[in-house]
């Protein structure tokens, strides 16, 4: 697959630019690269230890919700509202899962694209949606967890508004471009 080769070449290149480029540049600037690396790497442990309990709390709740079939039921309830903006009902589970789990959303998107084919409108909407939304709850849980924030204030509402706008925008832009 040509595109696959090109896109993986781009992301590999960017990755190596950081992993090899940063130490090489720093070495030329006479930075003690090895000592600096170790100094920074040591700071990783405490942050990680603080994140683990939050990760477990959030992923257990989300895993339970996914197993309960709540997303499928919600999709059925919301189906009439979707036709108003021309959103294919098949993409609703993706929009619902997305704020909770990136890997689950990836799975839903992969399933939609494989089932409907690479050129289907549904597939294009799903792909666009993946690009315009984020795993809000996961990000909030681990980022705030890392520094022990309990009062998250308006971070979650803002994240959910942006996911909603991202979903609607994905549908409308795809209708405009592909239909």
């Amino acid at each position, binding site marked *: 697959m040509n595109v696959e080769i090109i*896109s993986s070449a781009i992301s590999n290149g960017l990755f190596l630019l950081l992993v090899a480029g940063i130490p090489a540049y720093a070495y030329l600037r006479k930075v003690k690269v090895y000592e600096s690396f170790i100094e920074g790497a040591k700071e990783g442990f405490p942050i990680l230890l603080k994140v683990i309990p939050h990760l477990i709390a959030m992923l257990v709740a989300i895993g339970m919700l996914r197993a309960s079939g709540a997303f499928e039921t919600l999709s059925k309830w919301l189906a009439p509202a979707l036709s108003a903006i021309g959103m294919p009902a098949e993409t609703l589970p993706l929009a619902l899962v997305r704020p909770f789990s990136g890997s689950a959303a990836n799975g839903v998107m992969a399933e939609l694209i494989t089932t409907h084919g*690479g*050129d289907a409108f549904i597939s294009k909407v799903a*792909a666009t949606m993946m690009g315009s939304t984020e795993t809000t709850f996961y990000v909030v849980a681990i980022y705030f967890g890392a520094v022990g924030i309990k009062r998250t204030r308006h971070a979650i509402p803002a994240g959910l508004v942006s996911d909603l706008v991202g979903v609607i925008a994905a549908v409308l832009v795809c209708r405009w*471009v592909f239909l």
Partner: protein
Amino acid sequence: MLNAIWVGLIITAVIFGAINGRIPDVVAAVTDSAMFAFELALGLAGVMILWMGLMKIAEHAGLILALARSLKPLMRRLFPDVPVDHPAMGSMVMNMSANMFGLTNAATPLGLRAMADLEKLNPNPGTATNAMCTFLAINTSSIQLIPMTAIIYLAAAGSANPTSVITTSLIATIFSTTAALITVKALEKTRRFRLPATPTLPSQAPSDTPPPQAPTGEAAS
């Protein structure tokens, strides 16, 4: 908020599990997810420690400062409470750049480090600052320029033009990020979400002139 959402998720799962007759699945998901979360954390550990090390090298080489300086006008507008030369600016810029290029493995550790830097400016530990909420809003709105994974799936499914979604997701992302920023800035002053009144907090200080007497939390940096 987090408390209500967490309990809400669990209770909803139990209710829907009962309605859909999937209680055994829900029960199995409890232990499975806990194990998965820990494995995920372990997987994250190696990469995280690697990126923290690389970040320190970049910092010592002056790269972070240079990057942060080049984005100074934008960052100052987005984060008026963070001093321009504070390390938090650098780590937030690095996190956003990694996100733009879709380097998720790099973005998360950099973002966690940015949060640790932002926490140093927090006069109310345990409560999110405006800067933290803005940073989170940008992170939860997806600023990825090229949806690489989606393109690969489309290509694999025989799409004639898989990269066509770059344009659509870029446009949709502009909408979602703009919405995130508008929402976060609008909500930060509302009665429900505003910071508890602390005399040390320069909430009304204009962005480019520092308050005459620096508040305790920021004076140290």
